[in-house]
C-alpha cells in the first residue's frame, strides 16, 4: 500500500463521488461543479499514469474551457432546479435498472478482461512519464491528417455555434 495506490484510491473515490453527486444534484450548477470535481481528480490520475500533458490539457480544456462554458450557459439561462417529470415510461421504468446493469456488466467485463489480467500486476504501469515532445511528434507526424481534420471540425463547430446564436436573437 504505497503512496500512488493511496492517491489512486483517494482520487478514484472523489471521482466516483463526483459522478454520483452529478446524478443526485438537483441544481444544474451543482452537477457542473461535481463534474469539474471528477475531471480534476481524473487529471490527477492522468498524472499518476505519467500523462502530464494530457492532465494539463484535461484541466485547461475540459475544466477550464468546456465546463466554464457550461457554467456560463447555466448562468445565462439561469437554470434552476430541474423538474423531475417522467413522461417517458420507458425511461422511468427501464432506464435506471438497465443502466445499473450495464455498469455492473462493464465493471465485471473489464475486471476479467484479458487486458486487465495481462497488466493486473502493473507490469505495464511502470515506466517514466510520457514526454510531451514525443507526444507532439506522434501527433504532428503520424496523426497529422486527423489533426488537421479536427481543426476543420473545430472551425465548423464555431460556424455552427455562430449560426445558431445569430438565429436565436
Amino acid at each position, binding site marked *: 500500500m504505497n503512496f500512488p495506490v493511496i492517491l489512486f484510491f483517494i482520487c478514484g473515490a472523489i471521482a466516483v463521488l463526483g459522478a454520483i453527486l452529478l446524478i443526485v444534484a438537483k441544481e444544474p450548477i451543482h452537477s457542473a461543479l461535481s463534474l469539474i470535481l471528477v475531471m480534476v481528480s481524473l487529471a490527477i490520475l492522468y498524472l499518476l499514469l505519467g500523462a502530464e500533458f494530457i492532465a494539463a490539457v484535461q484541466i485547461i480544456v475540459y475544466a477550464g474551457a468546456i465546463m466554464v462554458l457550461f457554467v456560463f450557459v447555466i448562468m445565462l439561462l439561469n437554470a434552476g432546479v430541474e423538474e423531475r417529470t*417522467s413522461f417517458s415510461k420507458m*425511461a422511468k421504468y427501464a*432506464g435506471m435498472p438497465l443502466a445499473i446493469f*450495464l455498469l455492473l456488466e462493464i465493471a465485471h467485463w473489464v475486471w476479467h478482461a484479458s487486458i486487465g489480467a495481462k497488466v493486473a500486476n502493473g507490469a505495464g504501469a511502470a515506466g517514466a512519464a510520457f514526454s510531451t515532445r514525443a507526444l507532439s511528434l506522434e501527433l504532428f507526424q503520424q496523426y497529422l491528417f486527423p489533426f488537421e481534420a479536427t481543426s476543420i471540425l473545430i472551425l465548423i463547430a464555431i460556424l455552427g455555434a455562430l449560426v445558431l446564436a445569430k438565429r436565436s436573437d
Partner: protein
Amino acid sequence: MFILHHLWIILLLPLIGAALNGLLGAKWPKVAVNSIGIGSVGLSFLCVLELIREFLQLGATQVPYFERYFNWISAGIFNVDFALQVDQLTIIMLLVVTFVSLLVHIYSSGYMAHEGGYARFFSYLNLFVFFMLTLVLAANLVLMFVGWEGVGLCSYLLIGFWFLKDSAASAGKKAFITTRIGDFGFTIGILLTFWTFRSIDFGTMFQQASTMPVESAAGFGTLTVICLLLFAGAIGKSAQIPLYVWLPDAMEGPTPVSALIHAATMVTAGVYMVARMHPLFSRAPLAMYFVAAVGAATAFYAATIGVLQTDIKKVLAYSTVSQLGYMFLGCGVGAYAAGIFHLMTHAFFKGLLFLAAGSVIHAMGGEQDMRNMGGLRKKIPITYWTMLAATLAIAGIPGFAGFFSKDEILDAAGGGPHAAPVLYWLGLVGAGITSFYMFRLIFLTFFGQPRYDEHKVHVHESPSNMTIPLILLAICSVAGGWFAAPHLVGGSDYFEAFLHPVFASYGVPAAITQQESLAGAPGAAAGIAPNHAMELLHALTGLPVILAVIGLFLAWWFYIYKPDAARRAKESLRGLYTLVYNKYYIDEIYAALIINPLLWISTNVLWHVVDEKMIDGAVNGTAHVARELGGEVREIQSGNARTYATWVVVGAVGFTVLLIAVWMVR
C-alpha cells in the same frame, strides 16, 4: 488526296446545315435558309466530285480505301469503330445521293416557297442527306445500321411534315412502324453476323466469308439465315412484298421528299445493302433465289396496282415499288452491277418523274387526281417534255437510261447463272405493264381535253429553280444509261467494268464469276463478250422493247383513241377491276389479321390487365404495405429524447452481453 483522307467532311457538311437550319433557321430569312441548306449539300456534292478524282488515282490494292476515326463502342470483343470506307460501289452511291439531293434541294426552294416550317423542312432534308451518306460510307454493319435508322427517322419526319394533317401523321407512323418490322430482322441479322464472324467490319467479315463454301440451295445454312434476316430489313426499307404498304401512303409527304427519299435514295438503301453484302449472298443460293423471287413478284404485283391508280403520285409510288422489285431481281440473280445500274438510272428518272409530278401538282394548284387533269401539254411544256423523257426511260424505250439497266437485269434473270424463267417472265410482263401505266399517266395528264375548271385553276409553268432540276435530271435519264451502250454491240459495259472489282473481289466461287461473264459482265477483263453471249443477249433484248411498245400502244388505245374502251373494259372485268383498284385489299387484310388483334391484345390484356392490375397493383401494394408498417412503427418515435436514450442503453447492454458471452465461450 485531301477529301479522301478527310472523308468525314462529306458527312459533316449536311449535318452542320441541318443543325444550323434546325436550331436557328426558324428566325432567318428564306435566303439564308436556302443558302445553308442548298450550300451544304452542294459543297458535299463538290467534295464527292473531288473524291472521285482522287479515288481514280488509287491503286487497285488500295481499294476499298478505309479510314478509321475513333472507337465508338467497345464491349469485350465487340468493337465498333467509327470507320468509313470508299470503293467503286460507294462512289456510285455517293454520286447519285449527293447529285439528286442537290437537285431536290434546289427544287424544294421553289416548291416549298409558300409553305410554313421552311427551315425545318430544309434541316430535315440535310439531316437525311447526312444519314444517307453515313449509310453509304459506313465501313461496318453497325454504323451502316445507324445511317439506316437515321434515314428512316428522316423519312418519318418528312412524311409527317404537315403533321397537323391526320393522314400525314398516320402515314408517317405507318412508314416508321412497318419499316421497323423489317429492321427487327436486320438487327438480328447483325447480331447473327457478329456471332458468326466475330466482327462486323465489312473487310473482316468478307475475308472470312470468302473462305466459306457455297451453301446448298436446299437447306438453311448460317449465311443463308443471315442473308434472309438482312434481306428482311431490305424488304421493309425498300418496300417489297409484304411490307410495301407504307410507301404509297408516304406520298402524303411533300413531293420533293417523295422524289428524294421515296424514289431516288432511301428506298434503294435495301438494294445497296444487298449489293454490299454480296459476298454473303453469293454463298447463299436460297437467299439469292428468295431475293429474286420477292423482287420479281413485287415488280409485277406493284405494276398491276399502278395500272388503276388515279392519284398521280400514287401511280409513281407503286411504280417505284415495282422498279425496286426489278433491282432486287437483278441482285437476286447475281447481277449486282445491273441492280446498282438500275438503281442509278431509276434514281434519275423516278426522281425526275416525281419532281415533274410535283411541278404538275404545283401548276394545278394542289390537284393530284389525274382524272381532273388533261391537256396540260401546251401549258407546261418543260414539265411535259422532261416527264415524257423520264417516262420513255422507265418504260425501257431503247436508247433511254431505263432500257439499258432494266434489260441487263432481265438478261441476268433470263440467262444468268441463277436464271429463273418464271421470274424472268414476271419481270418481262411487269415491264410491259410499267410502260402501260406510265403512258396512261402521261396521256391522262398532258393529252386530251382539260377536265378541270379552267376559270378556277390557272395553270402556270413552275419557276426556274424548279424547272432547271427537271431539265438536268431529264438529261441524266436520257443519257444515264449510255455507259452500257457499247455492250449492245459487244463492247464492254463500262459501268459493270467500273463496279467489277467490288463484285469480283472476295473470291466469289468460280462457277458464278464464269457464268456472270455469260450474263454479260465481261468487264472482268474489260474484254469483248463471247459471241454466243451476244446473240443470246440480242434475242433477249427484243422482248422487253416489244412489250414496252405494246404497253404504249394499249395506253394510247384506251386513253386517246377510244376513251370509252377503258370504261367497257372496266364493265367486263368488274371483279378483277375492283380487286386491283382496291390494291388487292392488302391494307384491309393486314388490318384484319395483324393490326386489330394486336390492338385488341394491347388494350384488353396488356393495358387493362397487365399494366393496370399487375404492375400498378404491385406498386400501389408496396406503397400501401409501407404506409401501414410505417403507421405502426412510427409510434416508437415518441419524440421524447429520454426514451431514445433508454433504447440506446438497451442496445449497449445487449452488445455488452454479447461480448461477454463470446469472451466466455472462448
